[in-house]
């Protein structure tokens, strides 16, 4: 600190108070922006939502219609992505936590981290070149794989963190009882980390449920209900919102807001549930 503090302390204290106040101001602004956005979604969404809207399929302008097919489509895509992405992500996470201290583990960890930051639209382009071009048409399968590719790195890293939190003494105890390594991991370590891994999985699902870009040219979207064909295009809430938002019709804009309310409710519920579970654990 400088000498002669007596003279400067007044100014120093002022600077400190101003900067502290600015930081608090930033926090207020960011919270207000969030509340404004959520509030506006609620306000616009509530006015055009009803049961018919939730179960009907899209209709031409002026005839109403709904987002039933988009809701089921999103659920099918999420299910597909989970079936592909969760096993791969969780086992890769176990590998990194239990065996991943060498150069190979470090490489996988680094690549996984950077994969998390790869734009989702690039994943869409990749799946398009890999699956859609050979198949020659858009499909639910391609959409599910695209979402799975986004889930895998997220699930891998959270699983690894959660497994690393399990105390070594638990592993040693099981090993001392004569259990082979795989029984130790599957029977002792995984159950101990299961709630954390489930949390990570749910967050990953919440994250990909809002993805639009990778679905534009994989799942593509559809105006009909899913009929069980994985090799056909499929609707999703996000693509539906996008298509309605950029359309010129007020009626469709209103439907976009209502669909957004449904999507946001789903995502917020998952986030709050995760918050609640992790809080109980701590």
């Amino acid at each position, binding site marked *: *600190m400088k000498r002669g503090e007596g003279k400067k302390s007044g100014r*120093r204290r002022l600077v*400190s108070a101003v900067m*502290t106040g*600015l*930081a*608090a101001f*930033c*926090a207020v602004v*960011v*919270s207000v922006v*969030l509340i404004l*956005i959520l509030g*506006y979604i609620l306000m616009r969404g509530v006015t055009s939502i009803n049961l018919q809207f939730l179960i009907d399929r899209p209709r031409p302008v002026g005839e109403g219609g709904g987002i039933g097919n988009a809701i089921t489509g999103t659920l099918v895509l999420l299910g597909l992505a989970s079936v592909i992405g969760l*096993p*791969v992500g969780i*086992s*890769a996470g*176990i*590998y990194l936590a239990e*065996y*991943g201290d060498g150069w190979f583990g470090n490489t*996988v960890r*680094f690549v*996984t*981290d950077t*994969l*998390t*930051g*790869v*734009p*989702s639209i*690039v994943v*869409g*382009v*990749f799946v*398009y*070149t*890999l699956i859609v071009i050979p198949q020659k048409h858009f499909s639910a399968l391609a959409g599910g794989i695209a979402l799975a590719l986004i889930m895998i*790195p*997220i699930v891998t890293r959270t699983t690894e*963190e959660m497994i690393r939190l399990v105390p070594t003494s638990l592993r040693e105890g099981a090993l001392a009882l004569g259990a*082979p*390594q*795989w*029984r130790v991991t599957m029977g002792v370590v995984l159950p101990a980390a299961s709630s954390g891994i489930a949390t990570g999985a749910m*967050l990953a699902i919440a*994250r990909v449920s*809002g993805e*639009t*870009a990778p679905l534009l*040219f994989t799942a593509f979207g559809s105006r009909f209900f899913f009929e069980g064909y994985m090799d056909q295009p499929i609707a999703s809430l996000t693509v539906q*919102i996008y298509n309605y*938002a950029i359309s010129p019709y007020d009626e469709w804009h209103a439907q976009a807001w209502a669909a*957004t309310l449904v*999507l*946001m409710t789903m*995502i*917020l519920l998952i*986030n709050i549930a995760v918050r609640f579970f992790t809080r109980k654990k701590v």
Partner: protein
Amino acid sequence: MSSSQQNVPSPAAAYGALARVWRWRRALSATGTTGDAVFRLILLASAALILLIVSLMIASMAVNSGLSLREFGFHFLTGREWNPVMGRFGALPFIYGTVVSSLIALLIAVPFSLGVAIFLVEQAPPRLARPLAFLVELLAAIPSVVYGLWGIFVLAPLLRLHVEPLLQNYLGWLPLFSGPITGIGLLTGGIILAIMITPIITAVVRDVLSAVPTSQREAALALGATRWETTRVVLANAASGIAGAIILGLGRAIGETMAVTMVIGNRPEISASLFAPSYTIASVIANEFTEATGDLYLSALVEIGLILFVVTFIVNGLAKLLVWSVTRGTSGTARAT
């Protein structure tokens, strides 16, 4: 030291002998080793699959963009014309749009993110910090397309009617703020991006600040530093991590697609005005990929995707290294953002 001790095995040696026996017994029991080997192989395969996916991404996109790579070479990056009808493709307008909108986003988001993170770590009592941190995380949970919808119907009219006329009145002599006002363009895209990357930068800066040892703060306070001076010491300690957080935000801004596509105007032109419509790398892929007729058109778009992939990969890798340099050694700091 004495010779009598050499005959008596030390506890460690005895344990080693026991461990050897135990390993032998495990090796002889069929369930132990084969089970372990198979288990480990499955896990290894999953981890290797991630490497395979990334390699496949690069290979597949390189192959599919081959036509455009051969046709235009390096000029693809410097060409200003994007004309699918004439078959001429240059990516410069998209690179310009991406860079400028991302810079606007950083200019707005970085001060706010730093402020929020400082407030959360250095100032707020835990009872306030926890719910506030949750609010900021929620901001990150809002999907891109929802930001886009909000951008079209709330932010764009707000800018068109109130903010942009004001800017033009006072700063209109700058080329940045000249030209017709539409509410749709670079500035709108940049602001939407700023809102979207604020929670990401905040979360990482928060981790980085938390990783600075408490002793640093105590030392500064003991020397008579004010609250802000103490915070500056902490910031100096965390500088490279903060740089990493900002670069991470930049990576996210570069790759963000839907929200930007919905508010930036989608016109492949380079204009000095921030009010003018523009186009980004991610947006052109989103808009034109399904309509790309002809192999050259498609391969030009895939090449743009490849550029986006390589750039974000490098940016993110750099950011991770910087963040690691600060948080390494402290537990539970890696987050899946």
